[in-house]
């Protein structure tokens, strides 16, 4: 743009009225000169004036053309269009608010879901150079073990043997008792390498993080607090650094507080270096290559190193280990290591669900746009005279389209603003939901990328909703002008456009409804699934023992005997059991079944084959009767199954079917330690779905706690069958527990029914959200159909009146109209079925025992749809009965 042109731009902006007046005069003087010229050629005055006007070719059009080439004309046009748009909106507040609300629903839903998608899947990790962070996982491919813990020795080998990572750091998490002022408190404690936070690139909020000297064997014990723990348990005390707690019988000093960042792999209360964990620091454990305590390891790629290169490098180390220690890494296990980006690892559980929800929200917005497009078409029909007048006064076709588009975009912006007001409340629910999948949920917020998205979505919605009607109408207006009838009539092409919009709406809504229907069917199936035990009247909780007071397994077994005895005589408790894990426990659901290699007596494991893998739990005598898991064969555990008697075990039905399908398993023996010790099977219990209703049933053995260290041997979870509401007697139960040992910490108190419901929260929330979207879609589509029908009946009043006057019965006229509406609905449904069959595959990983092409769901949804469509057609069709043939004929 030249300098002169820029100067003109500002002049045009400031002196517009003067310029316009000048242009008026210039055009009229031109006309004068032209007239004079004609008169000189011998014409009379009147004739000359007419000839001059003819040569000029419409003074308004000429002026409009000049205005259009002026610098900054677009800005002026925009301001004009907006001003005019505001007038139109104020003129039709009902229409405007309908459009704004429709779009606000769509845009609000998209904003909320996009906030989560952006916060969880797209936003860069809040760690320095987060894309360089990789997670390491050991695997035994041939044994189907995808995630094997690391032993300290393995960590050292990978740390020292690789050439592609800046460092390798380790992590595991344990519960320890923190003795602060007066109470014993359980804290989830992460045990990490000293340079853990340096590798992550995390700077402390207060104090410092660990340095390598903190990891020395004789260093003073130190703790770093998580932001959340500092807030909730230390009252955000700014002087917390330096505070001393007792933990594992040693004083621990707080040296720092972490900033609010997502914690990987899990949320922890406090962090300590490896040298302070009594298990990790034990020299025997460090020397043992099989002591696989470390649940996560990760590293930072050296600059410029690709993931593939690091993967190859680490695999080399793994092969060297496999060759050097064949006993620890049997060939038949297919030992190896994988490296994956931390970002993917943090969020992969949430991905499918979020993408499904975002797609659903996008569909809702599309349907809303189609509806608005239809509303605008109807609206424009009433404005045809105005548009024709504008055209006559010099507006070009492009100008009319631009005007109508500006109006649509303004309405969409209104929808966007209202959507932003709705979004936060929806977001709250969504964040809680996402937190079940990923620790990144805490980072979700509506910041500028989200606002940008909303702006973009609103603009796009406005253009999508406004473009087709604007184009169709401008064409219509021009045609009408050409025909010079003065009255534009409904054109066939516009009717077709409206029909197509309705078909698209119906098809998309159908797809959403099918998605929601499939999820609903899946969750109903899940809820009806028999867990294999009785859920009601069960109280569950977790105990934490101060290990320093119970050093031997005999002491642990004694503690559990005393506990069980005390609790079984507590009022309101029918029976009580201890177990290392009870069904639907949160840890159990997160971790899934364990895998222990066993050797079955008399069955040779052929070399190159992986030994049987079983899940194992330690339970007390009355555990099965307490949860009502039925005994199928043999006997249950008794009080005589203790250290002095035969080591026994009970297996579940799945394990029996696998290994003793045609024989009696009672009396058979198996070993957890390659034949050093044997357990004799004394009974078989029915299968229980312990790790979530949607999961398969693991092959499982149970061993008695009195032979396995009691409450300190892992059996630290209590289940109580109560005769009253389980939660109501918790205080009594807790008092009874503390009367046995006041230092027993109790947490995770829940009723079994709640645990079961909790285990279904994610599929249920997904279902509810999809159902809400589908409901909105159905409602919008139904109003869309009704709107089209009402309009078409309104336009055909005359024709319908003629039909009635000629003796056609009202009911047959109604039928005829309804049939037309239903034809649209059926076409949409057919398209929807095709679309659903294609898209439902996306859902299949979220479905439980439900086929993505489930015929019942499709039929039911189609029925719902056609019913809704019939209603939507019938209501406006009913107006026909009000038509008075003689009146309608006289109309116009």
């Amino acid at each position: 743009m030249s300098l002169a042109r820029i100067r003109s731009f500002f002049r045009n902006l400031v002196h517009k009225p003067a310029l316009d007046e000048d242009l008026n005069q210039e055009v009229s003087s031109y006309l004068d000169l032209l007239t004079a010229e004609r008169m000189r050629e011998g014409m009379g005055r009147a004739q000359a004036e007419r000839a001059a006007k003819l040569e000029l070719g419409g003074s308004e059009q000429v002026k409009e053309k000049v205005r259009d080439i002026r610098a900054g004309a677009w800005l002026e046009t925009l301001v004009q269009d907006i001003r005019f748009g505001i007038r139109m909106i104020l003129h039709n507040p009902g229409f405007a608010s309908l459009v704004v609300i429709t779009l606000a629903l769509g845009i609000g839903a998209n904003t909320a879901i996009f906030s989560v998608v952006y916060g969880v899947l797209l936003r860069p990790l809040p760690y320095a150079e987060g894309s360089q962070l990789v997670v390491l996982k050991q695997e035994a491919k041939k044994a189907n073990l995808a995630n094997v813990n690391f032993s300290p020795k393995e960590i050292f080998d990978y740390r020292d043997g690789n050439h592609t990572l800046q460092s390798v750091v380790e992590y595991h998490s344990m519960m320890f008792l923190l003795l602060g002022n007066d109470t014993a408190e359980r804290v989830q404690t992460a045990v990490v390498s000293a340079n853990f936070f340096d590798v992550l690139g995390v700077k402390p909020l207060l104090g410092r993080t660990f340095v390598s000297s903190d990891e020395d064997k004789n260093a003073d014990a130190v703790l770093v607090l998580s932001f959340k723990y500092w807030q909730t348990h230390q009252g955000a005390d700014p002087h917390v650094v330096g505070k001393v707690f007792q933990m594992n019988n040693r004083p621990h000093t707080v040296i720092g507080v972490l900033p609010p960042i997502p914690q990987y792999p899990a949320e922890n209360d406090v962090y300590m270096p490896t040298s302070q964990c009594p298990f990790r620091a034990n020299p025997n454990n460090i020397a043992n290559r099989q002591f696989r305590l470390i649940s996560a390891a990760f590293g930072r790629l050296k600059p410029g190193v690709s993931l593939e290169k690091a993967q190859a490098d680490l695999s080399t180390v793994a092969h060297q280990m496999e060759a050097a220690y064949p006993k620890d890494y049997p060939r038949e296990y297919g030992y190896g290591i994988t490296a994956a980006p931390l970002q993917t690892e943090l969020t992969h559980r949430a991905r499918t669900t979020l993408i499904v929800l975002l797609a659903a929200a996008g569909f809702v917005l599309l349907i809303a746009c189609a509806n608005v497009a239809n509303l605008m078409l109807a609206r424009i029909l009433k404005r045809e005279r105005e548009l024709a007048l504008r055209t006559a006064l010099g507006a070009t076709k492009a100008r009319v389209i631009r005007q109508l588009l500006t109006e649509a975009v303004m309405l969409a912006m209104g929808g966007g603003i209202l959507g932003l007001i709705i979004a936060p409340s929806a977001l709250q629910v969504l964040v809680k939901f996402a937190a079940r999948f990923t620790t990144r949920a805490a980072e979700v917020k509506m910041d500028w990328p989200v606002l940008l998205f909303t702006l973009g979505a609103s603009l796009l919605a406005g253009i999508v909703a406004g473009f087709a009607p604007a184009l169709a109408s401008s064409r219509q207006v021009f045609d009408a002008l050409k025909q010079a009838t003065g009255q534009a009539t409904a054109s066939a092409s516009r009717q077709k456009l409206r029909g197509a919009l309705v078909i698209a709406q119906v098809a998309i809504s159908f797809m959403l409804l099918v998605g929601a229907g499939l999820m609903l069917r899946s969750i109903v199936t899940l809820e009806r699934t028999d867990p294999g035990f009785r859920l009601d009247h069960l109280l569950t909780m977790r105990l934490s023992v101060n290990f320093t007071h119970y050093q031997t397994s005999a002491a642990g077994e004694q503690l559990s005997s005393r506990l069980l005895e005390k609790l079984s005589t507590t009022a309101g408790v029918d029976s009580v059991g201890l177990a290392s894990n009870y069904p639907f426990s949160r840890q159990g659901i997160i971790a899934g079944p364990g895998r222990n290699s066993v050797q079955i007596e008399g069955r040779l494991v052929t070399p190159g084959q992986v030994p049987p893998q079983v899940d194992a739990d330690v339970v007390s005598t009355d555990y099965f009767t307490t949860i009502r898991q039925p005994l199928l064969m043999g006997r249950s555990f008794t009080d005589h199954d203790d250290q002095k008697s035969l080591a026994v075990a009970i297996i579940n039905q799945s394990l029996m079917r696998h290994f003793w399908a045609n024989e009696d398993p009672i009396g058979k023996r198996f070993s957890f330690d390659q034949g050093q010790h044997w357990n004799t099977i004394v009974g078989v219990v029915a299968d229980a779905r312990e790790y979530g209703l949607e999961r398969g049933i693991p092959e499982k053995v149970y061993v008695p706690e009195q032979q396995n260290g009691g409450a300190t041997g892992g059996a630290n979870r209590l289940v109580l069958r109560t005769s009253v509401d389980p939660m109501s007697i918790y205080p009594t139960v807790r008092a009874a527990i503390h009367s046995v040992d006041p230092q027993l910490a109790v947490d995770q108190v829940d009723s079994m029914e709640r645990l079961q419901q909790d285990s279904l929260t994610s599929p249920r929330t997904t279902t509810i959200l999809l159902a809400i979207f589908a409901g909105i879609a159905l409602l919008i589509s139904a109003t869309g159909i009704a709107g089209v029908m009402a309009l078409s009946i309104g336009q055909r009043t005359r024709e319908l009146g003629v039909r009635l006057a000629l003796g056609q019965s009202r009911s047959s006229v109604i039928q005829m109209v309804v049939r037309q509406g239903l034809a649209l609905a059926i076409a949409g449904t057919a398209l929807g079925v095709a679309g659903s069959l294609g898209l439902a595959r996306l859902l299949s990983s979220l479905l439980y025992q439900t086929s993505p092409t489930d015929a019942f769901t499709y039929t039911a949804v189609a029925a719902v749809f056609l019913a809704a469509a019939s209603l939507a057609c019938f209501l406006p069709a009913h107006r026909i009965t009000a038509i008075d043939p003689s009146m309608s004929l006289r109309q116009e």
Partner: protein
Amino acid sequence: MGQEQTALLQGTLDLLILKSLALEEMHGLGIARRVEQITGGTFQVKPGSLFPALHRMEEEGWVVSEWGESENNRRAKYYRITKMGRKQLETEAERWGRISLAIAQALASS
């Protein structure tokens, strides 16, 4: 309509207007008639093209305008070519010469 006109045609109209104004200042109708005259009636300049072109050229700084009296005492807006306008005329004329030569050569060959 301005944008729909091809750059060549627009450039040609500019060239013709500048050429007409190079000798003396003129009002709009005068320009239209002069163009018709110097092109031997080949170019009929309609007000619908003339006005936008004049105003655009004024915004570019090639011409300036002021109100004055016409030959028979009517108020009319007169356009005068500027220094920049003359430069533009030179480049346009040169460009046009090149184009017409090229086309003439193209047609002559075969």
